[in-house]
C-alpha cells in the first residue's frame, strides 16, 4: 500500500508513515488495518475529544481502482458516543481522490489553535485557515472550500455545526451528502478544530497485477450491473426494501414499539420512484448508483433519503410524509449529524413524553406528538446547537435516557442507536447488534439479508429460518467475518459480487494467492482485534445485550409474538467464536491462533 500521511495539528509536524508489510498482509486495509494501527493508542483513559485522540482516514487495497463498488474509505478512532472502537465508512469520491494523491490514509492528531482545513494537492499539504467556513453547514462548506481551492476535481470532506458543537453523533460528509455518519467522529474532528480536508490527486493507484485486475474488474462490473439486486438498488435506492421489510415486520415503527404503521407504503422506495424521484447518483466508479436525486415542491433537485433515514424520520416517528423526511434528512446532512442516531434519540424523547416521563417543562414548552414534523425539525435545530433540550439530545439516547432516569428505554447498544432492522423479525440481527464492535450497527454484518435468503453459496453459510435461535450463532459469526473483509477493502455492502470474484480481485490487486478461507481468517483476525481493543477499553460480557424494547414482542405485524432468545444465542456465539464465556474476551488460544500473541499477552498477562 501507499504511505499514510500523518499530521499533528498542535505542532504542525507532517510525516509519512510506512505501513508494515506484515500488517498489510494480515489486515488488507480499511477498518481492519486501522484497528491494528490504532491498537496501542486507544487506551481506557484516552479522552476521545482530546488532542491526543487519533483520527485515522484509511482506504482499502481496492479503493479507487474502479472495481465493483470499491470507492469507499473509512474513518476510525475512539468514539465519544460509546467510549469504544469507532469506525464509519463513506462513499463518494473523497477516498479514491486521497489515493490519487499518493497516500492511502491520513492520520490526524493534535489540535489546531484556530479552526483549519487541510488541502492536499498530490503530495503537497497546506494547513489553511477555516474562518470562512467555521459555523457553515456541510453543503456550504464544501462549496466555499472548492471555490477557494479553485481546482476542478477536488473533493472536500467536512464536518458541520454539529461536529463543531460536539454533538456525539456528528459525522463527516463529502460529495454533497455522502456520510461517515456513525460513532461521532465528526465531534472528534471538531475537537481538533479540524473543519475539513480537501484532496485532489493525479497519481496512479498501484496494482500488483494490472494485466489481470483490469479485465477482471470489467467483467465483475458488467455482471454486477446485470444483477437483479443491482436493478433493485438502481431503480429504488436502498429504500427498495421498505415494502418487504414492512411485510415481514422488520421495519421499526413508533420507536420500536409498534408492529404496524398504516403510512409505511407512502414512504417506500417504490413510492419515491413513482413520485419525487428525478435521478440517481453514484459513488466513484459504481455501476449501481443507489443514490437518490429527488425534486420537491420548490422545484430544486436534492439528495433523496436512503432506507435508514426514511425509517428514522418516517415510521420510527410515525411520519408518512416522504417530502418532509427528505427535508429532515437534508437538515441532518447539512448540520453533519447521523440520521440513524438523530431519529433514534428523538424517538426516545417522543416515547418518554408519551409515557409522561418527560413533559413540557423538560422540552422547552414543546409538545412531542408522534408524526409532528415541525417539532421534529425544531428538535434537530436545537440538537445541532445544543440549545435547551437539545443539550441532552445531542448526547445520544443512552445519555438522554440516563438524564431522565429511563436509560433502559433507550434502544441502543453500548451507546450507539440501533439501525432500523428489527431483530424480532431477523433474529440474526440480535447477535449482530449485541456483539458489534461499535455498538448497535448493521454494517458489521447485514445478517438480515441472510435471514431473508440472500446467501451466496460460496460463503459456506447455512440457511436458517429468519426467527431461528441459537443454531444460527456460528453462521452469524462467519458472516461478521465476511463483512469485516468488506469493511477492510473498503467495499460497499450492497454489491452482490460473488465470493470467488472478490477473492480474485484481491489477489490480482494485492499480489496475493489467497483462497476464500484466507479471507475469512483475515476477517476473523480483525474482528477479534476490535473485540480486544474494546475489552481493553472496558467492555465485558455484560455489554453484549439487547435493549429492553427488543425483548418485548410486537402485538401485531409480520413479526408479532416473537423475541430472539438472546441468552441462548450469545452462549452459542461465544462457543463459535472461541471467546471466554465468563469475561467475553477472546481466549488466549484463539488470539494466538490468529497471530495476535501480543494482544493475548495484553488481555491475559
Amino acid at each position: 500500500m501507499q504511505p499514510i500521511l500523518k499530521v499533528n495539528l498542535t505542532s504542525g509536524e507532517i510525516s509519512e508513515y510506512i505501513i508494515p508489510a506484515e500488517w498489510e498482509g494480515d489486515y488488507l486495509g480499511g477498518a481492519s488495518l486501522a484497528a491494528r494501527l490504532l491498537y496501542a493508542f486507544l487506551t481506557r483513559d484516552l479522552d476521545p475529544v482530546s488532542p491526543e485522540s487519533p483520527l485515522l482516514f484509511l482506504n482499502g487495497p481496492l479503493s479507487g481502482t474502479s472495481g465493483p463498488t470499491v470507492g469507499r474509505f473509512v474513518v476510525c478512532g475512539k468514539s465519544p458516543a460509546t467510549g469504544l472502537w469507532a469506525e464509519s465508512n463513506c462513499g463518494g469520491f473523497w477516498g479514491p481522490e486521497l489515493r490519487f494523491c499518493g497516500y492511502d490514509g491520513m492520520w490526524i492528531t493534535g489540535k489546531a489553535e484556530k479552526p483549519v482545513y487541510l488541502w492536499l494537492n498530490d503530495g503537497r499539504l497546506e494547513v489553511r485557515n477555516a474562518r470562512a467556513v467555521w459555523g457553515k453547514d456541510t453543503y456550504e462548506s464544501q462549496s466555499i472550500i472548492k471555490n477557494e481551492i479553485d481546482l476542478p476535481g477536488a473533493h472536500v470532506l467536512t464536518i458541520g455545526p454539529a461536529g463543531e458543537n460536539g454533538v456525539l453523533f456528528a459525522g463527516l460528509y463529502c460529495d454533497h451528502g455522502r456520510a461517515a455518519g456513525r460513532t461521532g467522529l465528526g465531534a472528534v474532528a471538531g475537537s481538533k478544530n479540524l473543519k475539513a480536508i480537501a484532496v485532489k490527486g493525479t497519481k496512479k493507484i498501484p496494482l500488483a497485477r494490472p494485466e489481470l485486475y483490469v479485465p477482471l474488474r470489467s467483467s465483475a462490473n458488467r455482471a454486477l450491473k446485470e444483477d437483479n439486486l443491482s436493478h433493485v438498488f438502481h431503480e429504488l435506492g436502498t429504500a427498495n426494501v421498505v415494502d418487504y421489510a414492512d411485510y415481514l415486520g422488520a421495519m421499526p415503527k413508533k420507536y420500536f414499539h409498534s408492529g404496524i404503521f398504516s403510512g409505511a407504503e407512502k414512504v417506500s422506495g417504490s413510492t419515491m420512484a413513482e413520485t419525487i424521484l428525478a435521478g440517481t447518483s453514484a459513488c466513484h466508479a459504481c455501476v449501481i448508483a443507489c443514490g437518490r436525486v429527488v425534486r420537491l415542491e420548490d422545484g430544486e433537485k436534492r439528495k433523496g433519503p436512503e432506507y435508514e433515514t426514511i425509517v428514522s424520520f418516517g415510521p420510527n416517528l410515525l411520519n408518512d410524509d416522504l417530502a418532509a423526511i427528505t427535508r429532515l434528512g437534508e437538515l441532518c446532512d447539512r448540520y453533519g449529524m447521523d440520521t440513524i442516531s438523530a431519529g433514534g434519540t428523538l424517538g426516545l424523547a417522543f416515547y418518554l413524553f408519551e409515557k409522561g416521563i418527560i413533559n413540557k417543562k423538560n422540552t422547552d414548552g414543546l409538545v412531542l406528538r408522534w408524526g409532528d414534523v415541525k417539532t421534529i425539525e425544531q428538535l434537530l435545530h436545537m440538537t445541532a446547537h445544543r440549545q435547551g433540550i437539545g443539550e441532552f439530545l445531542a448526547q445520544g439516547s443512552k445519555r438522554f435516557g440516563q438524564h431522565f432516569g429511563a436509560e433502559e428505554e433507550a434502544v441502543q447498544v453500548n451507546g450507539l442507536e440501533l439501525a432500523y432492522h428489527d431483530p424480532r423479525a431477523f433474529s440474526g440481527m440480535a447477535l449482530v447488534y449485541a456483539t458489534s464492535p461499535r455498538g448497535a450497527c448493521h454494517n458489521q454484518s447485514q445478517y438480515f439479508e441472510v435471514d431473508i435468503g440472500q446467501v451466496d453459496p460460496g460463503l459456506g453459510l447455512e440457511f436458517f429460518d429468519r426467527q431461528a435461535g441459537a443454531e444460527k450463532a456460528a453462521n452469524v459469526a462467519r458472516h461478521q467475518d465476511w463483512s469485516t473483509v468488506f469493511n477492510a477493502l473498503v467495499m460497499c455492502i450492497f454489491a452482490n459480487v460473488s465470493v470467488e470474484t472478490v477473492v480474485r480481485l484481491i489477489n490480482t490487486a494485492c499480489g496475493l494467492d489467497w483462497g476464500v478461507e484466507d479471507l475469512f481468517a483475515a476477517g476473523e483476525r480483525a474482528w477479534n482485534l476490535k473485540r480486544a481493543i474494546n475489552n481493553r477499553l472496558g467492555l465485558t460480557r455484560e455489554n453484549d445485550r439487547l435493549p429492553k424494547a427488543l425483548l418485548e414482542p410486537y402485538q401485531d405485524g409480520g413479526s408479532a409474538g416473537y423475541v430472539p432468545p438472546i441468552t441462548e444465542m450469545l452462549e452459542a456465539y461465544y462457543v463459535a467464536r472461541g471467546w471466554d464465556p465468563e469475561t467475553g474476551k477472546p481466549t488466549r488460544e484463539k488470539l494466538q491462533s490468529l497471530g495476535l500473541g501480543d494482544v493475548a499477552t495484553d488481555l491475559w498477562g
Partner: protein
Amino acid sequence: MAAIFPSLEWLEGLSEKLNSDAKYGQIARNWEGDICFVLEPSGPLTEELLYYLDLWHGKCRKTEILKDLSSVQPKFVFTATYDNASRVMKGELDPMQAMMTRKLQVHGSMAYIMRNVPVVLDFIRCAREATTEILS
C-alpha cells in the same frame, strides 16, 4: 386432474386456482400486469418453455404456452432454470430469495415487484397448491 409441473394442464389448473382462491383475490386485487415464466432447460427439462398469464385485479384473464416472446410484451418476464424453478415449486427455495441470489432473473419494474411482495408470495402459494406432481 393430474397437474404435473410443467404442463398445459398445470397452467390451466393454476388459472382455475387463481380465479377461485379468495385470499389471492384479496391480496392481488390491485395487481395489474401480465407475466411470462421462461423455464430454461436443466435437469429433466430438455427444451425451453414459456408460460404466459394475464393477471388483473386478483384474477387470471388468460393463459397460454408461447413459442417465443414475439407475440406478447408482458409486463414481467421471470427467467429461471428448470431446476431452480422446481425448487421454488417444492418450497425449497423462497421466491424472493431466488430473485436476490440470481436464481430467478426479473425483467420489468422492480419497483412494482417490491411494492407487491405479498402478491408474489401468494401467487407462488397458489402455484404450489395447484401442483400435484413435479417433473423429475
